[in-house]
């Protein structure tokens, strides 16, 4: 964990988000000693082995790791989608028993309702909660504007591009004002250009509304661009290898030298072979 000290000296400017306060002692989301086995007739896989992770309020956490490291399983446990595991999953101090609006999820596949137009999709969670129509319209308008989709509010899902679908999912998740937004490889299926755009857009949105985000990805650079902290996981069994602080000014772009350096450091952590790379660029 010498890396942590390195990155702190590299910090070109602290965002101030992670700055201390009384809330820092109390994690928003606490996953403690999580162990998860998948049992099938043929084999018994240890997907997560004694994983402990604490997410502080207003923090942007990225979990990165190769496929099979259990990162999505960990997110499903936080979401309450997966409720069968050993260990303790607490949200705001209470055990997670199932899915809830306060822990909204953005999925990798566009999990949108095809029979509803964009507006109605974003409105969905608010309608379930019984928010009055007038209020609903305002909230939806605000969130559509936030993801630059105001012009498409009457479009149906099949008329949208992949990137637009993910923006609708983001707006739908944020509209219910979740206490934490869980994002499961939301940009993995997009082309490189769209992915870059959405990373930038997500940073802008997050800077504006400052919600807590737990973001799972297998893309190292994406994790470094988005995260306050990057959790590096290793597979078989799924374990947390290290947690790397990213104290870089936002918005960050894939071309930032510091991003490239930190991504190299994270990649080294992931592979853990050879020698740690020297930073190529002076800050």
């Amino acid at each position, binding site marked *: 964990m010498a890396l942590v000290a390195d990155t702190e000296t590299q910090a070109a400017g602290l965002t101030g988000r992670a700055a201390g306060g009384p809330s820092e002692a109390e994690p928003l989301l606490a996953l403690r000693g999580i162990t998860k086995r998948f049992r099938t007739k043929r084999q018994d896989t240890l997907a997560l082995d004694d994983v402990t992770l604490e997410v502080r309020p207003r923090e942007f956490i990225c979990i990165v790791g190769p496929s099979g490291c259990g990162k999505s399983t960990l997110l499903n446990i936080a979401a309450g989608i997966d409720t069968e595991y050993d260990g303790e999953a607490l949200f705001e101090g209470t055990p997670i028993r199932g899915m809830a609006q306060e822990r909204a999820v953005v999925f990798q596949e566009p*999990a949108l309702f095809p029979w509803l137009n964009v507006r109605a999709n974003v409105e*969905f969670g608010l309608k379930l909660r019984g928010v009055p129509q007038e209020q609903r319209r305002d909230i939806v308008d605000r969130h559509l504007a936030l993801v630059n989709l105001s012009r498409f509010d009457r479009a149906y899902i099949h008329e949208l591009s992949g990137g637009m679908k993910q923006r609708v999912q983001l707006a739908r998740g944020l509209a219910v004002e979740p206490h934490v937004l869980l994002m499961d490889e939301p940009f993995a299926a997009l082309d490189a250009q769209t992915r870059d755009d959405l990373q930038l857009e997500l940073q802008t949105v997050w800077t504006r509304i400052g919600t807590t985000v737990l973001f799972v990805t297998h893309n190292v650079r994406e994790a470094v661009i988005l995260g306050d902290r990057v959790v590096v996981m290793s597979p078989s069994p799924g374990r947390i290898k290290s947690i790397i602080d990213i104290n870089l000014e936002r918005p960050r772009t894939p071309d930032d030298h510091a991003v490239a350096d930190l991504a190299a450091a994270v990649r080294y952590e992931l592979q853990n072979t050879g020698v740690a790379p020297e930073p190529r660029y002076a800050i």
Partner: protein
Amino acid sequence: MRSSRLHPSHEQVLKLLRVLGFYAAVIAIWSLLGRAEVWSPFLFPSPEKVFASLQTNFANGLIIDGLQASLRRLVVGYALSFVLGMSLGLLTATSRFADETVGGVVLGLQSLPSITWLPLAVLWFGLSESAIVFVVLMGSTFSIAISARSGMRGLPPLLARAAGTLGATRWQLYRYVVVPAMVPSMVQGMKQGWSFAWRSLMAGELLFVSVGLGHLLDVGRNLNNINMVFAIMLVIIAVGVAVDRLLFGRAEAWVRERWGFAAG
């Protein structure tokens, strides 16, 4: 799509002209063949005579009464089959035991041509309204059951999950996700069910029932009135096309607009 409905485009006008031209040509050739008397007028009537018969039988109320009787049976039988089919479909979709047992029976009965229920219906209910409604019911129930089952089974688990993370209760999940997600499959199943119901109704009426379009065909045959037979067939075609276009055509267009794929 919406704007083109309000203002027919150049292309749509051309299409309408093409279609109208086709039918005009068919009637013209038919008329020429009828006048030339290539075949005996007792076997092949001219369109003028068929339309005259159509007019007479509308005026004397035969067609209206027949239409009313047939449509009433159809509506009653189809409504019952919707309730029964939906129940069977939901049962087999949600219960594994029901799927393995009742589901197999449903699949088997679906392959049975529905008019073969007629002898059974006559033995059970006699020569009555109930017998013909029963045949209609059997015609469409299984199509609707199968589409209800596959519509419910076909719900992507991801959508149920998305609804859950947005706070849906079990009841809200059914109301706002499961039911709307079933619509494309249901439209297909109900369309198929309707066509089976309509065909078996006509066959049933032709065979034994008094009053009804199918019965009128039989009357025409008994009177050796080829004009009437042709006229009644035109009415039967018109009903079929109207229901297909107006009811199911619209439902399919609605599905296409939202889901974005041609249903079927």
